[in-house]
């Protein structure tokens, strides 16, 4: 424990005293959140999103012209409650259930819902039973905040840990530590905890700071949010440790980290929702810890999901943390 604390303390000091890196780690996410909030403050969607429960084929039988109408996007759902919730929060403009007698749900406070209702009446869906839901809109900023913070955490975790360890290996510091009784797991675990503390603290500061100006939507428990964020960061740091476990080349480490970060950046749902994407794309996205972290934090913040509801994501994040850290410690090379 003494050795672990020694490494933890030394690494924390190194980070906190590196003023330029510290300021950058704080400023970058602030700039991203404010920049994107400003850029996407208007609603420029040109498609109407319609959820379908019961399958598109059934919908075609019920209202043949509807699926061929332009500028409508149909997204299949298996779970009716989840889909209704999306209409409630304006994440979807309408929901149609054709699994039994056709019904549709529309949010009375949604302008898109109002217009869409008139469109479907004109293409043969006027006989569908009307259901009404009510709920405030989730702004785009509320939707993308978990993605932006998640992305920032991903870079801080992967590159922050990966490059530091490669630098230590390259300049001989790890070789010096190898000559002491310090074990590889103690060293790696201290690196993980050090980075975890810093990332969670910085993310909390950014969240609170942005919240003062933007007033984010927060429906769920802060403790559940903290748990998911912490596990997500652990999983991402473990990937960074695994990538850096063997190499002494910053170029190689950079390339490997890019291979990991780019797919996560595009497919984890940070920038855009994968609803409606090809199923195989959604399956690939499920591999990434970032997908689970962003999905769970969005559910907690925007839909008030409980710990039990995000438990599948919690398990995935816990498991990936343990597996990546274990493999990283096993293949770790001091030199």
């Amino acid at each position, binding site marked *: 424990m003494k050795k672990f604390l020694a490494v933890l303390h030394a690494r924390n*000091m190194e980070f906190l*005293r590196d003023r330029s890196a510290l300021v950058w780690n704080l400023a970058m996410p602030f700039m991203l959140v404010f920049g994107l909030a400003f850029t996407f403050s208007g609603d420029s969607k040109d498609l109407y999103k319609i959820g379908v429960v019961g399958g598109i084929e059934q919908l075609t039988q019920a209202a043949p012209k509807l699926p061929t109408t332009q500028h409508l996007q149909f997204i299949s759902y298996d779970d009716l409650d989840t889909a209704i919730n999306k209409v409630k929060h304006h994440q979807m403009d309408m929901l149609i259930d054709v699994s039994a007698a056709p019904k549709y749900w529309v949010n009375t406070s949604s302008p898109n819902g109002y217009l869409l209702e008139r469109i479907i009446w004109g293409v043969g869906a006027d006989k569908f039973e009307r259901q009404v839901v009510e709920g405030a809109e989730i702004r785009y900023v509320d939707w993308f905040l978990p993605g932006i913070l998640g992305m920032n955490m991903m870079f801080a975790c992967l590159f922050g840990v990966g490059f530091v360890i490669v630098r230590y290996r390259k300049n*001989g*510091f790890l070789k*010096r530590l*190898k*000559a*002491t*009784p310090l074990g590889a797991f103690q060293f790696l675990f201290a690196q993980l905890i050090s980075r975890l503390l810093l990332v969670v603290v910085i993310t909390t500061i950014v969240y609170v700071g942005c919240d003062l100006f933007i007033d984010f939507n927060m429906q769920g428990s802060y403790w559940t949010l903290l748990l998911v964020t912490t596990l997500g960061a652990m999983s991402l740091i473990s990937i960074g440790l695994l990538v850096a476990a063997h190499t002494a080349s910053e170029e190689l480490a950079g390339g490997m980290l890019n291979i990991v970060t780019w797919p996560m950046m595009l497919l984890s749902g940070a920038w855009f929702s994968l609803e409606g994407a090809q199923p195989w794309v959604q399956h690939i996205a499920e591999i990434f810890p970032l997908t689970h972290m962003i999905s769970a934090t969005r559910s907690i913040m925007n839909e008030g999901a409980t710990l039990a509801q995000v438990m599948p994501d919690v398990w995935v994040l816990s498991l990936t943390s343990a597996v990546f850290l274990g493999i990283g410690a096993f293949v770790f090379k001091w030199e």
Partner: protein
Amino acid sequence: MHAIITATDLVKQYPGVRAVDGINLSIPQGICFGLLGPNGAGKTTTIEMLEGIHQPTSGAVHYKGEPLGVRYREEVGIQFQHTALQDFLTVRETLKFFERLYTETLPIDEVIELCSLTDILDRDTRKLSGGQRQRLLLALALINDPDLIFLDEPTTGLDPQARRNFWDLVKLVKSRNKTIVLTTHYMEEAYALCDEIAIMDKGRIVSQGTPEQLLKEHFGDVVLQIPGDDAGGKLMQMDIGAVPAGELFEIKTNRLHHTLQQLMDNGINLDRLRIRAWTLEDLFINVTGKEHKL
């Protein structure tokens, strides 16, 4: 004296290169042992196998009769030739950091005093001079009160004054009955500090013993140096083995009295004659066949 560390048939094979080719060493407790050799001789590979940093391809290293293990890590001190420290920490924080990595340590104040670090305790380690940095690295190697200390080219790059100060420090450490294994490029350093030396070449030990023993073994004679402008012509005509060496003529002889008499009989002016003793530098060139380059 008991051996504190032994190496038996140590071999290190890299693809296409046998860096170390069957080294046997037995280093007694309490001495300063010097490992010398030209670049590429295999001395760093050998010392890193002794340190437990690299595993030998074959052969074994034993510390106090046991294979290298956790106890070895606790009881050995190492100053690497090239090493970095954690950035943004002061000298004091760096010492405390390493202190906490060991079960038993010397009082930190004792190490600070021993290595003369008092004046630079609050200085960022990145801002130390070469000599200060080497003193800190030695302090880190001593923090666990090791019985065995490895110093890998500790004075490379230091100015002559800092180098001599470091020698005094090593002598002080040695006086505490510590065993020191030293590699160095400086022959005068080896001569000043080492009780026993081994010279390596092409992965093997080519000569081993105390510096005096080795010099005696390899050089039974002395060298007479006479300025060439005084007697060059005459010396070359004499059957005395004189060879030009720059502006001098050198004569190697193991019959000093007889050679001097011959020179006087031939009217050679001996006013500027010098008798040069052989050094480790000469020994190094003699046994490795290479001129030593810094």
